[in-house]
């Protein structure tokens, strides 16, 4: 299963480092990553592959939620199909 992780919030050091470290520890491969400042907000979009991970989607989601609170930014993980279905025929 592939998922899209989005991180949106006030820019600070360590957002990418901490997010990718968490994914590394969960054995989740990052397929694509991009980061930009949109409307003065740090915006990162990652495409990740969960098939190599033993951890279930829900446990990763829970860990990302903890990280969200720690960093004070908004972090979402969503199944890639949601975006594919809306934007690709």
């Amino acid at each position, binding site marked *: 299963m592939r998922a899209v992780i*989005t991180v949106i919030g006030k820019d600070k050091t360590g957002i990418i480092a901490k997010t990718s470290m968490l994914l590394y520890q969960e054995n989740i491969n990052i397929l694509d990553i991009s980061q930009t400042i949109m409307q003065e907000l740090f915006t990162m979009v990652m495409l990740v592959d969960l098939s190599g991970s033993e951890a279930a*989607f829900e446990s990763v989601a829970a860990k990302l939620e903890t990280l969200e609170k720690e960093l004070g930014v908004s972090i979402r993980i*969503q199944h890639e199909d*949601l975006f594919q279905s*809306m934007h690709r025929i």
Partner: protein
Amino acid sequence: MLSNREIMETIHMISDENLDIRTITMGISLLDCCSESMETMRQKIFDKIAKKAEYLVETGEKIEREYGIPIIHKRIAVTPISLLAANAAGESTPLALAMDEAAKQTGVNFIGGYSALVHKGYTAGDEKVIHSLPQVLKETERVCASVNVGTTKAGINMDAVREMGEMVKAVAEATKEQDSCGCAKLVVFTNAVEDNPFMAGAFHGVGEPECVINVGVSGPGVVRNAVAKLGKNASFDILAETIKKTAFKITRMGQLVAHEASRRLNVPFGIVDLSLAPTPAVGDSVAYILEEMGLEQCGAHGTTAALALLNDAVKKGGVMASSHVGGLSGAFIPVSEDAGMISAVRSGALSLEKLEAMTCVCSVGLDMIVVPGDTPAQTISAIIADESAIGMINNKTTAVRIIPAVGKKVGDTVEFGGLLGSGPVMPVSRYSSETFVGRGGRIPAPIHSLRN
């Protein structure tokens, strides 16, 4: 690879524009629950619903988390109870209680199908269901009821229309302690559809399979923002095209969720219903879309044309996005559930007469209208008759969900709370329709019903 702009657009729709899957509704046939004993039937109904829908809420919540899209309601629709009620002696109320218990057991917030289809006349089961409405809507918490009084094919059963006016009053009286909110769970239809996932009018039609998953998608806020971005000078061509594209995107998401829910529950997928269904939340209003098109307030001249464009563009966008579009698909205009409608009624911009005109082009009808508690039953019947006529002649579904709030008068506000919102009491015509309604019989089907 998806672009960041596309990903952020979806996230923006969900987090800032109230895009949601409004409901996953499981339709369950109860035809095999028939028995000569009311008590046996009650047990069979409870067992079947509880078993079929055991994982409905859990599955819905799981999809919600994985896709990061809110799924507001998980609901159940069952075979019209009138089809079962005639099999056993005694009142049909125990069957409603079984529905209510099963709803609580499975964790759904509404269960529809305490219904009767009487467009040509009453069966013994229809009579039981209709006569028990006040008691059922008082004693149950989650049961929704509907009665179909007309179709384009059969005409309008005016005996049923007369009786439903009385029943609406009786339900209002029976639930007067809760501001007559029993009436919010009772819909009087013409041309009712068999696969509507939205409450209070959902039931599992006889042409439906054993069990089915229907999904209702909403998103007035998304459409409103898309219209707002066009500015004030965009032509109607561009307006319609933009709404169509937006509706397409929203429906695609509904199709995905419907497909996933169907796969995980191992229940066939029925339809996706794309209906712009407002909620009292700010920014989740259909009236605001109409105002965004350039009307000072909803109800101004031009409102009907604006709604016609909206309703049609929504359907066109939805049709291509899903393999099966059904239900009511279009725009709902429930007054008490729409912040823009409420303020339009309060300021005097929107009247019952204008709402009636709007129902000619919206996807349903007069919805969540609060009228004075002393409105005569015959006047309510006449309002139902007018709506039925619109539905019958125009070959569309119309519905009346009207609340004659006991003890309330024009200018008062009735608070239902939650999704049902709050409704300002609207004036009705003070001229009598008593003799008209009292005639009885049936209004024949229109000439264009003879299409064979």
